[in-house]
């Protein structure tokens, strides 16, 4: 079927198989490969992107379901070249990653959280990241980074 999805503000149209998953559309059709396929069973959160501004696991959404909607991937966060989104900056400053595989999804989950709750508590952050698994960091620096990003963006 023909689908047209706004990916990071650009219209991406293609004729794809009906069963195409959004994560494959993003990686193979739009050519944006920061979004990872991890568990492929909606458990790990590595494929998290924003769909109409809210976090979703793109391995469990059909491209057809996103037809006519807006997708944001981690490549679409920074306001310009050589710039970073506050959450990206905080992840770097707080050393919130080691291998980096979960990071694109983790950043998008954090961006979605801060859009809904600009000044989350540590407990709220831990709860909001339940759908994103990290096998390196033990999560502490990730939580610190989200707290730092919230405070940089004017939260408490």
């Amino acid at each position: 079927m023909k689908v047209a999805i706004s990916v990071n503000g650009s219209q991406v149209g293609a004729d794809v198989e009906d069963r195409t998953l959004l994560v494959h559309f993003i990686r193979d059709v739009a050519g944006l490969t920061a979004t990872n396929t991890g568990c492929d069973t909606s458990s790990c959160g590595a494929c998290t992107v924003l769909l109409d501004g809210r976090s979703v696991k793109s391995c469990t959404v059909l491209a057809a379901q996103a037809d006519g909607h807006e997708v944001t991937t981690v490549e679409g966060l920074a306001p310009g070249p050589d710039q970073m989104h506050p959450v990206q900056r905080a992840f770097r400053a707080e050393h919130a990653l080691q291998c980096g595989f979960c990071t694109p999804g983790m950043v998008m989950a954090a961006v979605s959280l801060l859009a809904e709750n600009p000044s989350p508590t540590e407990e709220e952050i831990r709860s909001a990241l339940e759908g994103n698994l990290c096998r390196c960091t033990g999560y502490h620096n990730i939580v610190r980074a989200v707290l730092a990003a919230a405070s940089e963006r004017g939260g408490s």
Partner: protein
Amino acid sequence: MIPAPFTYRRAATVDEAVTLAARGGEDVKFLAGGHSLLPLMKLRLVVPPELVDIGGIGELSHISEADGHVRVGALATHDQVAGSALLRRELPLLAHAAGRVGDPQVRHRGTIGGSLAHADPAADLPAVALALGATLVTRGPSGTREIAAGDFFTGLFETVLEPGELLAEIRFPKAGPSGWSFQKFTKRGIDWAIVGVAVAGDRVALVNMGPTPLRARAVEDALASGAAPDEAAARAAEGTSAPEDLNGSRAYREHLARVLVGRALGEARSRR
């Protein structure tokens, strides 16, 4: 992992969804948020030839009050249900439990109707619907039906829904000032309940203690005849047939049911 090939169709209205499903035959599946169906399709445990996407039907995501009831459209997401001021006021058990389904990403996509129609005995909301005495309103080729939650679930992933019949709305009687509690025991936050308990007033419902969500009748009867909460909770496993799997044996689940019902009754009492 990708699903086996299927034909995708999109419905803009309930009538169109019912028409498309009838035309497609009895193996057609409705697709809402897809968070129960798509994982099963990726594992090829379900291989529908055709999906009718109802996700864009605007008339099915309402949350409103009418005649002492609260009406929740089948497409209301867990996130919408959890955040609804009306539900937090009138049916705090439902709002709270919806906020504990899966994780934020799942709650952004998963719907209350999908959770009920999928009828996974480990899912939270079917037991909540039982505890709250919900009525499920369906639309199908032969018209509209109103089905009590207690009559809806017939077996493992099975309901009384006929092929092509769409769950459209869930109606909840307002709970009034009765105590409530929702207890869910998981190893990780995002997991399905190993055992869960929903208490609303004098109704007690269990998650994952049999092939369907079920009322803990022995507990309810004990409470009705004046038993103390601890005494009633001791009967939580009576009449259940809990599954055995890698998360626990039947005996372990029966123990959890007694413990969680005890906690739930205590918490519900404190909220009266």
